């Protein structure tokens, strides 16, 4: 084994691919066990005479197979047979964490926004944030796209497809538009 701490971590920021592989396999193994348990909730996991396999058969035995494959991955990790288990590279660089993390947070806020203020306003805010703050584009581009996208979407979905999209508390603002398209 190498001299330094074989977890390869110098701090919480420095997760190596190796560590991530192990943690991933453990997390998925726990998930598999969870599914196995949930599969037995009110369902039969064996053969019901004259009726065939129980409803729980498929989920239970498959999640058992999932658990076994996670255990196999952990065994492979210990033996170092996969490239990921040998790699001491950083799992995610600082830049990656920055751009991916912020994108995911922006998406989270977008979805929360859809619940509360409705999709069109949330889209606008999301685009303004993404284009201007994250992307550093010009105000012209930002304004054009942020206004164009919800407009196009509105007429396409509500007008053409007649699928109403969530509007939350901003619903009253759309009344005049409804009169226009219907």
């Amino acid at each position, binding site marked *: 084994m190498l001299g330094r701490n074989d977890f390869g971590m110098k701090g919480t920021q420095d997760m190596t*691919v190796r560590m*991530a*592989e192990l943690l*991933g396999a453990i997390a*998925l193994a726990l998930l598999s066990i969870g*599914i196995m348990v*949930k*599969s037995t909730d*009110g*369902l039969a996991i064996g*053969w019901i005479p004259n*009726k*065939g*396999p*129980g*409803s*729980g058969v*498929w*989920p239970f035995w*498959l*999640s058992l*197979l*999932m658990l076994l*494959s*996670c255990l*196999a*991955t952990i065994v*492979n990790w210990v033996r170092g047979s*996969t*490239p*990921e288990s040998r790699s001491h590279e950083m*799992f*995610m660089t600082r830049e*990656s964490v920055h*751009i*991916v993390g912020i*994108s*995911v947070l922006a*998406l*989270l806020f*977008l*979805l929360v926004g*859809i*619940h509360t203020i409705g*999709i069109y306003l949330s889209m606008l805010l*999301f*685009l303004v944030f*993404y*284009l201007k703050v994250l*992307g550093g*584009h010009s105000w012209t*581009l930002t304004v054009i*796209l942020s206004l164009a*996208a919800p407009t196009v*979407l509105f007429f396409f*979905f509500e007008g*053409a*497809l007649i*699928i109403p*999209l969530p509007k939350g508390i901003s619903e009253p603002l759309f009344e005049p538009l409804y009169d226009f398209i219907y």
Partner: protein
Amino acid sequence: METILEPLAAGILQSLEPLNLAMLVLGCTVGLFVGALPGLGSVNGVAILLPVTFLVPPTTAIIFLAAIYYGAMYGGAVSSITLGIPGASTAVATVFDGRPLAQKGKADLALVTAAVASFIGGTISVVLFTLFAPPLAAFALKFGPEEEFCLMLLAFATFIGLGGDDIPKTIFSICIGLVLATIGLDIISGKPRLIFFDIDGFYHGINFLVLAIGIYGIGEMLWTLEETKGSVQVHKVTGGFKSLLRNLKAVKDYFPITILGSLIGYFVGMLPAAGATPAALMSYGLAKTFSKDPDSFGKGNVSGVAAPESANNAASTGSMLPMITLGIPGSPTTAILLGGMIIWGLRPGPLLFAEHPDFVWGLIGSLYVANFATVIINLAFIPVFVRVLTIRFTILAPMIFLLCVVGGYAPTQTMHDVWLMLLFGVVGYFLRKLNYPVAPAVLAIVLGPLAEQSFRQSMLGSQGDAFIFLQRPLSATFLVVAVLLAAYPIVSGMLKKRAAQSA
């Protein structure tokens, strides 16, 4: 022959109807752009735009999506050649010789070669498709639930055996897809299954689109956002009609290899689950082996562009064959098309020919038309594409994210599915980083309900005797082939070790 020509002609005429033709041309164009843009390929385009098709009749919808699939096979080459970044995984092999050609200032030669090779590949494969489809469908009519189940096992085994990914991780991916498909109300017994934390939204199950858009939309964007740091270097493309004619004359240099590539592409595409990516790579490898000048490959040999490009187009058509006739997708994109067909109320498989002939022949006819339409649009718009490719990802990504959110909401109109989609996207991104293959999961969630049903029907029919699968000759054959396929990587690994040890 006559029994094919008549419905085929009807199908071609159907695809020339105004709405169908308009959607076809739109699909080809969208596909070209989607394929050309780095980070998006046919599978992403088809997944994200599938909800759009709820607006139109199923025949138009499949023509549109198939046109996207087609267009993306043409378009992938544009980014590979001009940017050196594969436009889609299907265009990876095109980078090997496409990029050096561009660096030498011959980008236009490479682009025209790619377009022509794609056209040849598409044409040959569509003809083969027309010839193979009816007999294969007739053969599949003999299948019972035992054969269906073993055939699906074979499809999954192909992923394990030929996928090239870590086996336990592939098995995990397949299984989790199958398990996700069970969430909701059990069709046979009516009991609720896997309603996690008693959240109501799970009662209607997990729509495959939620997983597909999550992984191929959100996950893909997160992945590409991480990858595309630093500047993309666009190579200048000199265009013009004269150079087009000059480049077209070069066809005779690579015509034979294109034929070979098309055949390889078609047959590899036909294999369940494999798809255009391995077809293109295999074709490149074989072209290099059979070439008179193998060392020139990788440095700018036009055959190195022609071979994979004809193969990936041929494979996209080939992968539709098992989808239509057997109900087994031939590639990740066709898995999504299959899911779409189920949503539209069509059950893919041999009965489709009998029950919905205009749908099937409309699709086949449209492939002929799409091939022509795409090559024309491709050649005409090359300069436009090159311009478009310089769109910064920070503009494209939020657009795609929004499309995903809307696309995830549209099928069931519940926010629950959108949250799930985000979850799948983020988890899928992390799993992909750890080298878990995601395509098997998407395939599994589409085939899951059908697989479980076939399994339970078989078991019921045999009164619990698991050996029924081995007693019927067809299902036994599928099962044996499946086991061989799954065992192939283990066996070849052991053989390699032995060779290395004795060396």
